[in-house]
């Protein structure tokens, strides 16, 4: 399988516990697990319906220059990015399973103005996950009318 173009990397205080949680609650599958000589997790890759995700521990150092990777759990619940997962179908079933399995639900499934049905959940270390499923095709005019916002699909007129 070809690797998808974009692969988010998500950082945890306890990445091994996170891997298990993501498998059990969201249905990810660990496809690659790299451990160093001490048995510590160095890198991992998970897959989910054709998408890919990396999970790692908190780290910093010369390898990434000034960047410092932190779990939201160590920085008062702050997030610099979220992960969005586009489901082809069964969003409500995915939601029911995640809730049952202990995910903290931020927003229950709702139909959005842009034609998607979405729900939002938080994992045990505070990362935010947006699940979405397209349920109908919406025109730019419909989106603008629904929101009062300006919608552009290209640079024209920008």
């Amino acid at each position, binding site marked *: 399988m070809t690797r*998808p173009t974009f692969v988010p990397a998500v950082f945890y205080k306890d990445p091994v516990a996170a891997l298990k949680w993501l498998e059990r609650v969201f249905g990810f599958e660990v496809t*690659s697990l*790299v451990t160093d000589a001490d048995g510590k997790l160095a890198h991992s890759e998970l897959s989910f*319906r054709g998408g890919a995700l990396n999970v790692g521990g908190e780290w910093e150092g010369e390898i990434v220059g000034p960047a*410092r990777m932190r779990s939201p759990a160590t920085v008062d619940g702050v997030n*610099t990015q979220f992960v969005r997962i586009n489901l082809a179908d069964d969003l409500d079933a995915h939601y029911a399973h995640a809730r049952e399995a202990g995910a903290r639900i931020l927003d229950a499934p709702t139909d959005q103005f842009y034609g998607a049905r979405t729900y939002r959940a938080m994992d045990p270390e505070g990362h935010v996950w947006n699940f979405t499923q397209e349920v109908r095709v919406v025109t730019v005019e419909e989106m603008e009318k629904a929101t009062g916002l300006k919608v552009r699909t290209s640079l024209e007129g920008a």
Partner: protein
Amino acid sequence: MEARTTIGPVIWYRDPKAAIDWLETAFGFERRLVVEGDDGMIAHSELTLGDGYIMVVGPPREKAISPMQFGGRATQSVHVQLTDSVDEHYARAQAAGATITRAIATQPYGDRVYVCTDIEDHPWSFGQTVQVLSDDAVAEATGHTTKTGKGV
């Protein structure tokens, strides 16, 4: 709209409009949807490359924050897997002012990779597979143990 890949990052910027312009110039992404509010607010946007897309949003609210407001700390990063021309991509990003945090180099696992931060200090890595290696060959080169496949 074409079929979407399953997973994409939602990235928070203090100035999302400037970020979209910069990401197009530096990384070659292309905007296909921008939902814009007042005062430079971006409620939603989609920028594409290859088979994938990212979402640039902002300014940050509630518990969201840009790394540039946060001492360079980040809770996620994005890896971008290119199919070709990673060296040209590297040159383009540098020319646009990306901060290179790891110079481009071929890694022991067979990918040519560079790492940088963008105008608001979000971390990015870009890679291209230049040599396909077995798990054993990677283990020998890195001293790490790799397990792949179901049930690892």
